[in-house]
């Protein structure tokens, strides 16, 4: 079992290396880095501009929002970098029938799909996210102790797992729908937009949807609240990992069910 895990890990690494090198064959590959930098800067710019136009909301300042938002974006970016293959899977692999080829190989399907794509520039998002979170923490005057760093790291890990779960879930459902998966943006790019809204002002329906259906608040808001002491129960901040893992488990079930029911498409 252990040896097998190591072997799969090696394959995963090889895949990433291959994608990295092939991507760098393009003359303009470094432009991709700038491009994602622009995404990362432009994403929160709407929020920053809103604050500059409207001023603070009660005790909520830009730094509060940016901290919660950055945690969500960074974990989304991590998942996007590591599990990119699942993101592309329904559109490219399934519809073209390339998936049949993977089924023939005596290797873990999960690793093969997860590593079927990798873009270096995706890593820009988590990196800038973490920097933004650091800026927000210093702006809020929070001094980092090892315990707090652990909470934040757990939030990132839990968020990464949760978003991997989102990608796996859509791939699993794609076996049944083939096309028509635009709703996935609800769970990816639209989901972290919700963190732009200060939690106390969020309508209850949205709040419960993003804590119990997709545990968005558990991986961004509650850890931030615990670290900065915004008067929420301390233990809520520690729930990021279990919440993310639960979501991933559910997605893996759907994925396995899908693989079992797979009938080839394409040629």
């Amino acid at each position, binding site marked *: 079992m252990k040896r097998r895990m190591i072997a799969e890990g090696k394959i995963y690494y090889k895949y990433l290396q291959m994608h990295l090198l092939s991507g760098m064959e393009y003359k*303009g590959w470094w432009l991709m880095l700038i491009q994602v930098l622009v995404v990362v800067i432009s994403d929160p710019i709407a929020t920053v501009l809103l604050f500059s136009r409207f*001023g603070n909301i009660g005790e909520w300042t830009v730094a509060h929002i940016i901290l919660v938002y950055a945690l969500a974006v960074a974990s989304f970016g991590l998942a996007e970098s590591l599990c990119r293959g699942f993101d592309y899977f329904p559109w490219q692999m399934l519809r073209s029938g390339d998936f049949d080829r993977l089924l023939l190989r005596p290797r873990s399907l999960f690793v093969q799909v997860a590593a079927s794509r990798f873009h270096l520039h995706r890593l820009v998002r988590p990196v800038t996210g973490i920097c933004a979170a650091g800026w927000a923490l210093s702006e809020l005057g929070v001094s980092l102790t090892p315990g707090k760093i652990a909470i934040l790291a757990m939030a990132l890990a839990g968020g990464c797992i949760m978003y991997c779960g989102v990608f796996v879930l859509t791939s699993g459902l794609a076996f049944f729908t083939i*096309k028509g998966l635009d709703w996935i943006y609800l769970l990816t790019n*639209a989901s972290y937009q919700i963190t732009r809204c200060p939690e106390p002002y969020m309508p209850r329906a949205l709040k419960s949807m993003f804590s119990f259906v997709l545990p968005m608040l558990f991986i961004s808001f509650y850890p931030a609240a615990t670290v900065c002491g915004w008067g929420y129960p301390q233990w809520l901040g520690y729930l990021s990992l279990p919440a993310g893992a639960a979501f991933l488990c559910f997605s893996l079930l759907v994925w396995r069910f899908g693989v079992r029911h797979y009938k080839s498409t394409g040629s």
Partner: protein
Amino acid sequence: MNFRSTCRACSSLFRIRMAEGLQYRASAISGVFVSVFWGLIECVLFTVFYTYSDNGAWNNNGLALSQTISYVWLAQGLFVLQTMSIDSEIMSKINNGDVGVELCRPLNLYTHWFVKSSAGKLGTSWLRSLATILTGFLMPAGYALGAPASVLGFACFLLSAVMAFVLCSSFAMFVTAIRLNITWGDGPTYMLLLFSGILSGTYLPLRLWPDFMQTFLYLQPFGGFADIPVQLYVGSLTPSAALPAIGLQFFWSAVFIASGRTIMDHKLKSIIVQGG
């Protein structure tokens, strides 16, 4: 080749792509879902800012809350025109070398692709935008899309929305022409598409950007994608300002078409067909 047969070819291309787009109804429905959800989040956010923020009441930007909410819904409706990627069929043709086959057709490549990509864009999206806008009307009072500011404003909105479609198509073709230079990869095209998206006003109404940027935001080409038509609808641009605004959209379309054509012709002279 004469003009009439070009027109005939274009209209059949248009019909084929439209029919193809309509086949994926599930895709259109889930698209509406996303737009509506996104719209709702934006509405909540703006309501919070207008109601609770320090200077929400006197922020002096020319957009009231109800106008902003109408703006959000209409921008969601028009957003589908600005595809964030090049038409996938054309893209794969560029990547696998089918451009060579396309060049054998007795039809100007630019015209051909222009029709193809704009029809592809319209194929599913008119349904999606109509459904989004309709849902906007049906929302509960605080979050609903309001009626147009005036009848004349509505007419200007329709005219400007059509112009926005032309503008988006010509910009998409401009980007495609740049993408023909395959050795550069996706970087430059993504960046162009991204900038256009941000500056189109669908991220944040351009009126809510800082005051010193307003002149620039008005004159830049991407406001014509969504901001100008929507502002005509909600009345923050009066019908008397419609003519120059639509003229601006027209001007930028012409610029994009001319430069797209030039780049493409230039590139096709020295094209190296990839793959086989």
